[in-house]
């Protein structure tokens, strides 16, 4: 059958992607500019036998999502800045206890209540370090409505495959903008299911350190396992024995770091002969694409580096081009967050020009173009 063609918002495409990935549980608390996700899922989920609940706050929403996921359901929550702050403690719980789920943050201007209806990219560092303690993190950030659909499916896939929460970032522009999208009958990327234990129940180790990602049983399946936010041994029981602590924390890092090839996604435009590159993501990348095009028309050798996975930070996206670049422009809707990561990845080999803006307005193509003309 031919795909259904629709005109959708990013938030609606996120809903379609989540359902295509097998979402069966959503808990949330309304907040602009993410609310459309909750509204659509309150309507859609019961129709497919899934469950929606509006919790009393974002702390509870994050908690309910973890509880639901432990019963085997693919689970998601969606929020914006203030709510993302509230989710942090339980997000860390999900990372340590290795419970798959997807946490959407449609970013608005901050800090605090900030600019509720304006776009921003000021939570990218919070996505990395918002919860306390050393922890791995996967955060994805699509830049168009069709890409939101596909990346949402991938977010679920990574969550289930690596037994971890995955943060899906958007900004107000991506969340609310409408674009044409084709929704195929079967998902454009294969849907990944969680690995279940196959060992006899007595032998089940929910935190088996001999593999990167131990299989996860579901509550109610008879494994009778323990899940705790305390540092735990392979059985899931609390421990403070240094060797066991280290074994767990190391595996948590390794399961992400040793699978970067599968986790890192990016797009480049015109990098083959580029002497100048623009690094941009989300809505800012859309302005950057336009700036790169205009500059190319003027004969300037410029390209685009657009990370889709922003955590773990895709060092390789930068490092593979450092030798050919005379200058690197980093454009982001904040006062300087990922730019420091880019700088680290260049190892000081390329001068960096910062195009930073946090006034609630999109960075215009012209602003980026001017920077290109300055450094070329």
């Amino acid at each position, binding site marked *: 059958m031919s795909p259904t063609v629709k005109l959708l918002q990013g938030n609606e495409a996120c809903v379609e992607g989540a359902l295509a990935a097998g979402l*069966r549980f959503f808990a949330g608390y309304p907040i602009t500019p993410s609310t459309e996700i909750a509204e659509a899922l309150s309507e859609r989920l019961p129709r497919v036998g899934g*469950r929606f609940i509006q*919790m009393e706050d974002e702390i509870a929403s994050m908690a309910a999502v973890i*509880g639901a996921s432990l*019963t085997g359901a693919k689970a998601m929550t969606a929020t914006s800045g203030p709510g993302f702050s509230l989710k942090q403690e339980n997000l860390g719980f999900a990372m340590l206890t290795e419970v798959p789920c997807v946490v959407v943050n449609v970013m608005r201007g901050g800090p605090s209540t900030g600019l509720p209806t304006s776009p921003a990219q000021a939570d990218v560092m919070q996505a990395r370090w918002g919860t306390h303690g050393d922890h791995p993190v996967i955060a994805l950030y699509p830049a168009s409505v069709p890409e939101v659909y596909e990346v949402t499916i991938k977010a679920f896939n990574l969550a289930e495959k690596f037994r971890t929460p995955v943060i899906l970032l958007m900004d107000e522009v991506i969340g609310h903008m409408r674009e044409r999208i084709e929704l195929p009958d079967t998902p454009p990327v294969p849907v990944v299911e969680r690995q279940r234990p196959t060992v006899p129940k007595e032998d089940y180790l929910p935190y088996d350190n001999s593999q990167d990602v131990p299989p996860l049983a579901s509550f*109610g399946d008879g494994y009778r396992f323990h899940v*705790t936010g305390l540092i735990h041994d392979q059985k899931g029981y609390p421990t403070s024995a240094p060797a066991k602590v280290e074994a767990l924390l190391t595996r948590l890092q390794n399961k992400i770091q040793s699978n970067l090839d599968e986790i890192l996604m990016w797009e480049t435009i015109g990098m083959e002969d580029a002497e100048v590159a623009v690094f941009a993501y989300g809505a800012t990348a859309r302005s950057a694409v336009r700036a790169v095009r205009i500059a190319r028309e003027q004969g300037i050798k410029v390209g685009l580096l657009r990370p889709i996975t922003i955590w773990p930070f895709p060092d390789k996206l930068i490092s593979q081009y450092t030798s050919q670049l005379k200058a690197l422009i980093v454009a982001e809707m904040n006062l300087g967050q990922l730019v420091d990561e880019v700088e680290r990845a260049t190892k000081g080999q390329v001068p960096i020009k910062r195009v930073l803006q946090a006034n609630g307005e999109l960075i215009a193509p012209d602003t980026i173009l001017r920077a290109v003309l300055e450094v070329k």
Partner: protein
Amino acid sequence: MLAEKYLRDAMMPHIWCPGCGHGIILQAVLRAIEKAGLDQDKTVIVSGIGCSSRASGYVNFDTLHTTHGRALAFATGVKLAKPELNVIVLTGDGDALAIGGNHFIHACRRNIDITTIVFNNSIYGMTSGQYSPMTPAGKFATTSPYGNIDRNFDVCELAKAAGATYVARSTAYHAASMPDLIVKAIKNKGFSVVEAISQCPTYYGRRNKMGSAVDMLNWQKENTVNVAAAARLQPEQLAGKIIIGELYNNPAPEFTQQYEELIARLQGGEE
């Protein structure tokens, strides 16, 4: 044997101090689970953070030891996602009513089929004895060195007012009769709260010169009146007494059941 069937050997010894009431209450919970005939593989125990909340780790079910105050929110996700599971929440007075107070009232309001046991020792035991929302006015704690001027909650009145459909109170001293109350709480298809008054001889008892654990158990005996007996007493006679027993039992439509009906209705193609 109850212990053999329901306790996790590998988790022993437990962390509780000698004389702590939490173990007595946990035993009453396990007796109730046995009496109610719950399937061990279909029962999930969820707890928050505190001495009392450590109980989840000691028992042989699917168990979820969550973040401070949030047990009910996690439990809500478990129950709604898989309604055939029996969900029991074990929580402390601080866990349930301070940091978790908002989740508590909303779980009551929703009347979701979860049984909550509040281990009330009138103190934050885990963090060494600060006052809690259940510390009576005038009592001493490490953070109320001059006597507590905060008023305390009556968790049973709070639960009733917020919409819980089964509410009961017992004490560690009344461990023999507590399981029957918990059985009824489990059988109630809706949100049930059992306040289980516990003793913390280490912090609350010592600070307030209440004597040994045995003295504290005697205090529980002397200062409580069963709800049936209380009905025959004058208000003056009840002054300062704590009423125990079944305090409220008034079934109402349950949340997950209504959600199941919604799914059935939508999938039946009626809309």
